[in-house]
């Protein structure tokens, strides 16, 4: 088979082509490595520098007051908890209902208009939301946990609505048709048949939105930001402290002790956010499997 004049060796041109191929594959691999190592570097920095400062007292004691050393971040933990709970209470029902309207009831064009609106809302710079709530509420009523939660709810709304829509689309249409064929009204089909199958997806979306809202600083700057007061505030009618704002404040301080506390607070925040994203991922996989059956 092999003739002397037909050597089975790659030509110079072929060698060059495969060298270029290998080079570009290498570039892709290195790029992915860069992204993953950036994540590792940031997370490791936070854990190494913040780990030593974390203690039971740090988590459960209120700060000593601005400029004073020591004590903990209890008021910020409570504040973030309240802000996120209130924001969820505002965004979750509206987001789910809006998604039901867009996927189950609205004519296509109209639901397209709403989709564009939600996408634009999703891309809105969060500092603009802060300014907006400042003008709408804070100018007249002063800063409060409610105002901050409202700003966070605007961030959560498109996330909740979109993930609800996605899981509604996964619901097999046979379920819808079956309900209607049995003579059930539209609302019974939606409330009794479709919604229960989408719980997993809605929870996933909510967890992701909570993770996002818990880490936001910009919407709180003008709506619920206080220089750490001694004592823990549970009243959302007053301005609430929050973990992101605490980190922001401590990071701008020249004092290395403040930096250590900022790292520790960042560790708390990042651990929460990463765990929430992981949990959401697992939940999503489970919902997909269940609906695919």
């Amino acid at each position, binding site marked *: 088979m092999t003739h002397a004049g037909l050597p089975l060796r790659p030509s110079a041109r072929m060698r060059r*082509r*495969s060298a*270029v*191929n290998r080079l*570009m594959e290498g570039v*892709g*691999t290195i*790029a*992915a490595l*860069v*992204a*993953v190592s*950036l*994540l590792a*570097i940031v*997370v490791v*920095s936070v854990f190494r520098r913040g780990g030593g400062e974390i203690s039971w007292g740090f988590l459960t004691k209120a700060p000593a007051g601005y400029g004073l050393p020591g004590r903990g971040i209890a008021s910020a933990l409570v504040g973030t908890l309240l802000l996120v709970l209130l924001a969820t209470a505002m965004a979750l029902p*509206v987001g789910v*209902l*809006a998604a*039901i*309207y867009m996927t189950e*009831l609205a004519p296509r064009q109209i639901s397209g*208009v*709403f989709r564009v*609106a*939600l996408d*634009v*809302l999703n*891309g*809105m*710079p*969060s*500092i*603009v939301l802060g*300014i*907006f709530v*400042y*003008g*709408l509420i804070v100018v007249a009523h002063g800063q409060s946990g409610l105002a901050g939660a409202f700003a966070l709810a605007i961030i959560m*709304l498109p996330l909740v*609505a979109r993930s609800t829509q996605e899981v509604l689309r996964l619901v097999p249409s046979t379920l819808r048709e079956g309900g209607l064929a049995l003579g059930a*009204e*539209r609302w019974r089909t939606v409330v009794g048949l479709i919604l229960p199958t989408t719980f997993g997806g809605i929870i996933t979306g909510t967890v992701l939105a909570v*993770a996002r809202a818990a*880490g936001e600083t*910009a919407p709180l*700057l003008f709506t619920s930001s206080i220089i750490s007061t001694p004592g823990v505030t549970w009243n959302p009618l007053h301005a609430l402290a929050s973990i992101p*704002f605490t*980190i*922001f404040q401590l*990071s*701008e301080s020249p004092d290395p002790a403040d*930096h250590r506390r900022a*790292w520790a607070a*960042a560790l708390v*925040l*990042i651990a929460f*956010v990463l765990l929430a*994203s992981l949990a959401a991922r697992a939940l999503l996989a489970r919902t997909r499997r269940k609906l695919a059956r």
Partner: protein
Amino acid sequence: MSVVPSSHPLHLGGRRARGRLGDLVLHGVTLAAALAGVAVLVLIGLEVVEGSHRAFGRFGLHFLASSAWNPVKDVYGAWPYVYGTLVSSLLALAIATPLSIAIGLYLSELAPRGVRGAIGALVEMLAAIPSVVLGLWGILVLGPFVRAHVEPWLNHTLGFTRIFDGPYSGFGLLPAILILTIMIVPIVSSICRELFLAVPSELEEGALALGTTRWEMIRGVILPAARPGIAAAAILGLGRAVGEAIAVSQVIGNSNGGIARSLFAPSNTLASGIANEFQGATSKLQVSSLFYLATILLAIGLAVNLLAQLIVRRFEFRRTGVD
């Protein structure tokens, strides 16, 4: 379509009427929720524009071109903020886009099947890091590193361009660009991955069957097919970079003293400027000027978003139009 005469002869049972009512309530409540989203959007526009009314009346459109930002004299101009925003986000995008395309290609075409999902998840995790944490890292880890290694190196090799000039500080445009790059890479690269995965595998296999190498197939088939989508992804990344306030204000050095050619110099962006100055704002005109900055930011954000959506729509249309 069911045609029901208005004078329905049949008596509607109570159950039936309740069903009607239930449907009506469901329709009403869900429509109200959907409208609430639109209402918020409209309110945001009105509120921000109204807040900037005083500054608009005083400075007009000249505000955009003026570099004066002087609370003592109560004179304000947006140009340094606009300039800082443009330079930081465009340069971040210039670094992030090729990097993201490469990551997207790795995740969709090159990575071994076993690690593909895991690496994709890790890249997306990068997007989950709160910006204030990234900013803290920027101040205390990235900044010192940039000051000690990156800035001296850039100055030695490219200092003659005067773009990398001046004292090394670790605060300024350069670290802001790097932080923004880190923030937008996960967003752009996960969109890229989806785009590349959506390219029909018949086309890829066809190219490979013709004897192309994997890179030639990528360059000849995947990248051209995904080009509009890549543009949309980059624009969405740009929108994110333009709107980022906290992390940028932590590392950019916050100057409002005008414009320097060097990337080492402290600067400011629209978003970081608002974040920084708002609490210190004393006069009504200054607050209104900050609302004016927010209006510009809103306009950029809106334009960027709609443009990206337009590209995606046309792209989808073309793809489905072929079928």
